[in-house]
């Protein structure tokens, strides 16, 4: 009951959750949401404005824009969710090890983290896609390389704080093994920051994926990614600004949904504000996410 009331009073969580659920619904059920195929071209009906037949208009090949964006949601979200999940797993592992073990291992691993942070994120991702070759999986791998450092830093800080607490000390004094202390005591207490960071990172990943496509280092056409739609839209900005606007709106609403969800979760899970303060490494609170990481 209290949980429900808290949910009701947590407007960001509610709105963000609704947006995310709606987008996920579109991403999962996209094949049934439109009579057109995402690659169905109609060169005589290029760049059409919204109509009854195409209620978001058509793109530069006369393909139905709604269909493209709905299919694109599936691709963009898969890349974002996949890369953030892997980055969170790697980052958490390294953060746990660093924060718990400390000493030389911490020193070395954190210098590697610094090394990755020293690269402008988009340039790092671009170079990696150039090395690995284009395609959805490789884009996701490049994004993992960009994101894992944030998780490592936040988790490490959380673990270090947690380690100093009395209950951990007493558990250790009572002879609990390291693994047990980490799994039973520390990890559950760092889950809050990880979940929050992950939701916020998903928003950043969506923007970064479109940014990479924009630079020509993304998923291959004719895959209907939002980045491609936006990049083509940019070519027709002056004559047909509609294409660009709609693609950008799709990205913005989705990112907004995940950001609101992240904020709401933070109020729910992390009242101490670990992810907010941390070392300034939260994606939504650091430049890495927006101006730096994907501008």
């Amino acid at each position, binding site marked *: 009951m209290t949980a429900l009331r808290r949910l009701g009073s947590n407007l960001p969580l509610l709105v963000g959750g609704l947006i995310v659920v709606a987008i996920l619904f579109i991403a999962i059920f996209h094949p049934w949401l439109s009579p057109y195929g995402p690659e169905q071209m109609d060169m005589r009906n290029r760049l059409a404005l919204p109509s009854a037949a195409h209620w978001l208009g058509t793109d530069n090949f006369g393909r139905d824009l709604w269909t493209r964006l709905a299919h694109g949601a599936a691709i963009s979200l898969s890349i974002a969710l996949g890369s953030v999940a892997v980055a969170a797993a790697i980052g958490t592992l390294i953060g746990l090890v660093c924060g718990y073990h400390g000493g030389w291992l911490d020193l070395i691993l954190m210098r590697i983290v*610094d090394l990755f942070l020293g690269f402008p994120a988009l340039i790092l991702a671009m170079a990696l896609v150039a090395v690995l070759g284009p395609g959805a999986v490789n884009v996701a791998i490049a994004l993992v390389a960009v994101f894992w450092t944030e998780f490592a830093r936040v988790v490490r800080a959380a673990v270090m704080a947690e380690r100093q607490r009395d209950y951990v000390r007493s558990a250790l004094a009572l002879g609990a093994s390291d693994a047990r202390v980490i799994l039973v005591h520390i990890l559950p207490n760092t889950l809050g920051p990880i979940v929050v960071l992950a939701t916020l990172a998903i928003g950043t990943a969506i923007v970064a994926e479109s940014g990479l496509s924009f630079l020509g280092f993304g998923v291959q056409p004719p895959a209907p990614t939002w980045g491609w739609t936006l990049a083509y839209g940019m070519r027709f900005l002056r004559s047909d600004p509609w294409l660009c606007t709609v693609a950008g709106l799709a990205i913005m609403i989705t990112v907004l949904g995940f950001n609101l969800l992240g904020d709401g979760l933070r109020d729910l899970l992390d009242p101490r504000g670990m992810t907010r303060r941390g070392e300034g490494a939260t994606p939504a609170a650091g*430049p890495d996410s927006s*101006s730096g990481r994907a501008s």
Partner: protein
Amino acid sequence: MLSYLVRRLLLLIPFSLGVAFVVFALLHVIPGDPAIVLLGEEATAEALAQVRTNLGLDQPLPVRFGLYLLDLVRLDLGRSIFRNEAVSTVIAERFAATAEVALLATLLSVVVGVTLGVVAAVRRGSIVDVGCMLFAQLGVSMPVFWLGILLMYLFAVRLAVLPSIGRGEPLVDALLAAAMGNPGVLRTSLAHLAMPVVALGLNGAAILSRLVRSSMLETLSADYVRTARAKGLPIRRVVMGHALRNALLPVISVVGLQFGALLGGAVLTEGIFGWPGLGQLAVGAISQRDIPLVQGLVLVFALMFALVNLAVDVLYVVVDPRVRLR
């Protein structure tokens, strides 16, 4: 303090070596090489082999890395393959362009972000607060390059009041010209700067306003602030004198990180506005496989980032004497 600074600066040396090694390794495995780009359509197998020899690309990897490190020790970043100029010169030429956008955008984000954050915190729950937070949410969610595109559409295409692309005279020169009584140059420079600065600055402002608001709310509810208000100090004094100062601490670190990242060049925003900055230079260098230039750029980026971080840590001490550096 001094020994701390020295230690941090010395740490930059192994850090730079690490960065240099990673970039070198990355550039080695990337497909395509500068010889292909250099010869373009005329790339016969024989010519390619010759150019590779001339560029030293046919040497064993450890030798190449060794030679590069030797140059690095002498603070020589090498020559750009495509520009026939020292890498340091090429970077220096573009640095000013990136720095002026980064500075102005950071300035804008601090002014707007802190103002909105403070107002929202003081008027918590009011319509002003809701408005500020709506701006913050939208600003954070909007991809910066899309905002750039929208600004361009509105101000350059529809209204045609701002130049859509390119840079005027360097800001420093323009300011000098204005001082000499020629304000037209400055106006042109500022007109070119407006959209990139607003696109990048608004996003920063959105991030900062949220941070300042929550930080302010925390300090406003702290005991000493309550005491100050109980003692009858006017609200303006309380906010400005006590709360803001303490709320600024987390803001400094975020502003520092933002500024550091902006100095790395806002790749997409520069691309959209044709801004001749470091981000554009880096993308061009990668897509030409201009190895010395890419290496030099990444090294400079990493060092700038590290130095800004250091500056932030030092600023912390200045703002809050309770913080000690070890």
